[in-house]
């Protein structure tokens, strides 16, 4: 049974578990859908389904170590589809940080509310883009460009989609 109410201490935070099949297949399906849909409609690449899955698992489990590892694995899987010009590890690093941050936040605030989820996804998308840009441009000197308008629009789109995605994924939670 999901926890409802305000969160004032760590003991009150509900921690959820997931079936192993869900843990394995949900990220794979997210990456597959991301790859397939982007091939048909290029502009849909703005939606980052794997990042939403990272956030969802990290927030639900509320364990930073688990969040780190989940983010790293999903990010590395996403990296592996990026082609030879895309170094493996860029999404890995980004999603690791997102996983850690999401699970840390999940221990402190109510992340079941749609409004909170909207804001959380928006902020994490901005962080995601910033870390990715920092790794690619700052560390690897790749020719990336930063655009605030693009990040703002992407954040909005992901936040809207994220609310529905989280609602769908909630049915896989096990207390």
């Amino acid at each position, binding site marked *: 049974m999901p926890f409802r109410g305000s969160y004032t201490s760590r003991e009150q935070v509900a921690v959820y578990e997931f079936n192993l099949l869900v843990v394995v297949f949900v990220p794979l399906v997210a*990456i597959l859908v*991301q*790859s*397939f849909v*982007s*091939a048909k409609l*290029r*502009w849909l*690449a*703005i939606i980052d389904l794997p990042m939403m899955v990272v956030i969802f698992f990290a927030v639900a489990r509320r364990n*930073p*170590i688990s969040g*780190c*590892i989940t983010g*790293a694995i999903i990010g*590395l899987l*996403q990296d592996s*589809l*990026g*082609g*030879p*010009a*895309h*170094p*493996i*590890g*860029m*999404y*890995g*690093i980004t999603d*690791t*940080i997102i996983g*850690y941050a999401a699970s*840390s936040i999940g221990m402190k605030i109510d992340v079941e509310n749609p409004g909170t989820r909207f804001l959380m996804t928006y902020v994490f998308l901005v962080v995601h883009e910033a870390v*990715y840009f920092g*790794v*690619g441009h700052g*560390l*690897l*000197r790749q*020719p*990336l*460009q930063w*655009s605030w308008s693009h990040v703002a629009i992407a954040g909005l789109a992901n936040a809207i989609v994220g609310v529905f995605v989280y609602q769908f994924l909630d049915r896989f939670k096990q207390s």
Partner: protein
Amino acid sequence: METILGRYKNLIVLAVILFAQIIALAVQVRRPGQDGETRLIRVWAIGIVTPFEKAVVHTQNWFHDKWTGYLYLRGVRNENAQLRAEIERMNLEQARVNEDAKMARRIQTLLAFKEQYVESTIAAQVIGTSGSEQSRVLYIDKGSDDGIKPDMAVITPTGIVGKVVQVSRGSAQVLPINDQLSGVGAALKDSRLQGILKGAPNGTTTLQYIMSDEPVKPGEQVITSGGDRIFPKGLPVGSVASVEPGKDLFLNIRVIPSSRLDKLEEVLVITKVDYKLPDTKDLGPIRASDILSERLPGLPASQGVEAAGNAITQPGALNTPAGTAASTRSGTARPTTPPATPGQTPTTRPATPATAGAAKPSMTATPTTGATSTTKPAVTLTQPVPRKPVTAPPNGANQPATTQSPTTEAPARKPPATAPNAVPQEPPAAQPQPSEVPPR
């Protein structure tokens, strides 16, 4: 110690995972340097170690310089004289080597002209993308089992798409031309200006390295130049959408690709490109300018003829532009373009023997008949010149041929083509006008 580890356990795990991935990144990423590409981890390691090494070496060098430069100067005067003599000898040798190099380049240019023809392709279906915005790679459903190899060109009937970068047994990865790491040798179809078509992170394509003083107009077609050794020459790339002054004296030319890269479903992979040398059989000795005039893609045959029409041939040699070989192989020169207006005499004359000295083995189509070459300066050809195999008199002097009257020679005095691939801009005019020298 145990308390600290327990307290910061989460952060330590985060740091370890991040550190491992950063190291993995540094191992796989290569950064271009002067001596090729170097792994990033080496760059970082070198960046950490070299400052200490430099300090030691500089200190050592400082003492060494002080010793050898101020204290220990025995034999320096003799050595200086020897070195001066050596420099003089090297200067002479360098001049000779430069001449040899120039000659080698000329010969290489003459001998190495090859044309590419797409011989076979494989149709493939686009089945996926990278799924990220930064990378625009595509996946196709054909792989090594179907004969796909890396660096094969991928096209559609409307234009080029990209190149194969990685191949597995049943699929392959394609780097499209609008990816930020893509680069394609491209040229403007009309002006023949060559540049590099590069993608941008936002998916646009720009033609780079065209000087800002070049006249480039929106709508001009862009084709492959063949310089990248991936795409055969002359394939459609796209059209110029906008031209803006860029930085570093280059234009910022935005190009709209001919292929709809965002809605690709089927593509063709070029699996075999046939390289063919120009057909020079039975044509006798030909000049580089003649070969170049044949290489102009998209040029109507008659204009190509006219562009090279002024080239002077050696005895028995004929100008052999594409499309006119049949008319010239008989050994007698015939007029290929009629006189433009009444009253203008034909400019084509019967071929007469010329002396060996009259033929000039140069890359530029410079007339060697006396009246033409001595009175007109060499300017860029802007109007087509009627083809006329002109010959020099047997005495080798630059005089008009005996079968040619001075009055009929006058209309034929067109400025020679200074560039071997000069393209005639317009059809033959009724009356020869003073040639304008376009910016390019």
